[in-house]
């Protein structure tokens, strides 16, 4: 796997292979379109490649709690699902965050609300970045827009999960999951579990027993834990990343993530070829949000247009990022409608000329 040969695979497979390369040894999941390629691939490969465990859980609730269990054991573990399934995981994710357990959750976002459809959507941005579960917690959120990023970000996701002892969400969508592209697999350096052996539970031989929990009843204990979590989230801000494209001389900066980001890139290229001064910021991390990047651009006097395949979610973060300096317009492409680069010509031109 270490030579630089490109393989032609689906995004779902890239995500699966990325997880294996990251040293993931436990997979738990429940079938749901459009991510079934992942459990199907890993049902044999998890054992074959990493000598790991694959469990088809009875539900997403169970899958997320199996993840919590494996994480408590210090294992590199993951679950994958799509929107309705991820909604069912919210309690467990809140517990993982509260108990400071690392784990990777992939959401191949489909159309909602409700059963919706199985097409592409970015409707789960709020759920992903605001903690759809209860309480004050955050998960790191990575948003791949290509199959290669699907692969790479899985490796990154496991690393971040252990670095911060926090759940990491990989927010893909049906386009990224279902498309095929050339992917160059690579093997990261040996997995660094950032000292998991010092907190995980694996039998109290020769040491104090350990306890992983999120219940804090003693006076002030929960407040303390929340302060602790908040300072961790503060530290996470350093991980914010974005793909900045043609922004230097841009008058209008489009902000778009994931597959919509890459599709908009085509639109921007086309407009550039027509001499239009448009740029693109594609956030690669959705939490932490690359606010600095946007603030810097705002200070340069750029205007902003946020494009999402939803009814307006990330635009809140863009507006909050540049507040006091600039604002952002919004164009939403409805879930339920497969977007192409043509769809974004008119809105971008409109706001460019506004």
């Amino acid at each position, binding site marked *: 796997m270490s030579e630089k040969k490109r393989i032609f695979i689906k995004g779902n497979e890239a995500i699966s292979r990325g997880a294996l390369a990251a040293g993931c*040894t*436990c997979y*738990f999941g429940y079938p749901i379109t459009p991510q079934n390629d992942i459990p199907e691939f890993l049902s044999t490969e998890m054992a074959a490649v990493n000598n790991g*465990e694959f*469990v088809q*859980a*009875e*539900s997403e*609730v*169970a*899958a997320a*709690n*199996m*993840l*919590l*269990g*494996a*994480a*408590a*054991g*210090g*294992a590199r*573990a993951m679950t994958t699902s799509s929107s309705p399934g991820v909604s069912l995981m919210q*309690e*467990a994710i809140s*517990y993982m965050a509260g*108990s400071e357990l690392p784990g990777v959750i992939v959401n191949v976002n489909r159309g909602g609300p409700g059963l919706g459809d199985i097409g592409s959507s970015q409707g789960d941005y709020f759920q992903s970045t605001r903690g759809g579960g209860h309480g004050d917690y955050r998960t790191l959120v990575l948003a791949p827009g290509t199959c290669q990023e699907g692969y790479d970000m899985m490796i990154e996701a496991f690393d971040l999960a252990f670095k911060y002892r926090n759940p990491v969400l990989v927010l893909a969508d049906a386009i990224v999951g279902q498309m095929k592209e050339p992917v160059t697999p690579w093997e990261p350096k040996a997995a660094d579990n950032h000292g998991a052996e010092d907190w995980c*539970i*694996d*039998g*109290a*031989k*020769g040491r104090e*027993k*350990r*306890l*992983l*929990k*999120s*219940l804090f009843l003693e006076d002030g204990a929960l407040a303390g834990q929340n302060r602790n979590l908040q300072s961790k989230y503060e530290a996470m801000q350093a991980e914010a990343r974005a793909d900045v494209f043609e922004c230097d001389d841009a008058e209008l900066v489009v902000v778009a993530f994931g597959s919509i980001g890459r599709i908009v890139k085509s639109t921007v290229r086309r407009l550039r070829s027509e001499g239009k001064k448009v740029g693109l910021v594609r956030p690669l991390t959705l939490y932490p949000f690359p606010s600095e990047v946007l603030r810097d651009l705002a200070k340069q006097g750029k205007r902003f247009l946020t494009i999402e395949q939803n009814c307006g979610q990330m635009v809140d973060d863009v507006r909050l990022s540049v507040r006091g300096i600039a604002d952002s317009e919004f164009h939403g492409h409805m879930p339920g409608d497969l977007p192409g680069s043509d769809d974004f010509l008119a809105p971008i031109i409109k706001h460019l000329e506004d």
Partner: protein
Amino acid sequence: MSEKLVFDAPEIMIDRPTHYCPGCHHGVAHRLVGEVLTEMGLVDDTLCVGSIGCSVFIYNYLDVDAVEAPHGRAPAVATGLKRAHKDKFVFTYQGDGDLASIGLAEIVHAANRGEKISVVFVNNTVYGMTGGQMAPTTLVGQKATTCPDGRCAEEHGQAIRMSEIIGGLGGTAYCERVSLDSVKNIRRAKKALRKAFEMQVNGTGFGFVEMLSACPTNWKMDPIAANTRIKEEMIPYFPLGVFKDVTKDGEE
């Protein structure tokens, strides 16, 4: 005079008074678990999955590694933990609200898959921690805060019998219902735990021990009356016995 200490708390039990109400059987169940883990030499290899209920603080009393599972999900958490540590001893400790109500799918599927874990199921026919609401195991006629006139079969259905269900599943290796109301039954309960735990250690499969237990507070009875209730009302409906033992297949 040379005297021998013939009964003492096992060392695994942390020496602090429990938060349980007087006469609550969680204390007995904790001790039995502690004794069996000690006798089997498992203390340093044990991972305890606590559940949400009065016993959520089990980790304050047993000196082993532990994780807190969301309400009802201990069997799923234990599945993940055991898969990550196949060589460790993993058990869950769950109440009847936790296991038979919200966590029903998780316990049944963990058993059906034959996960190599052990489950200690404390059935006190009521939601203890939250203040005495009806549980799926509440007996017909029994009063609870959400059925103050007593459980009514027509309206609420009958008490669910978990050992009967778990015993019927393919992946279950050992399943027994015991009771903590008398010295004899407590002795039997300990043997059952040992049996179930051994099945995990040997890699045979899923072990399940249901313990009929008293919750004097929410039964609104004194501890002695509560004990009597187990014998007179619970055991007749929840028969004691072995519901599955793969090492004796066909024998019973």
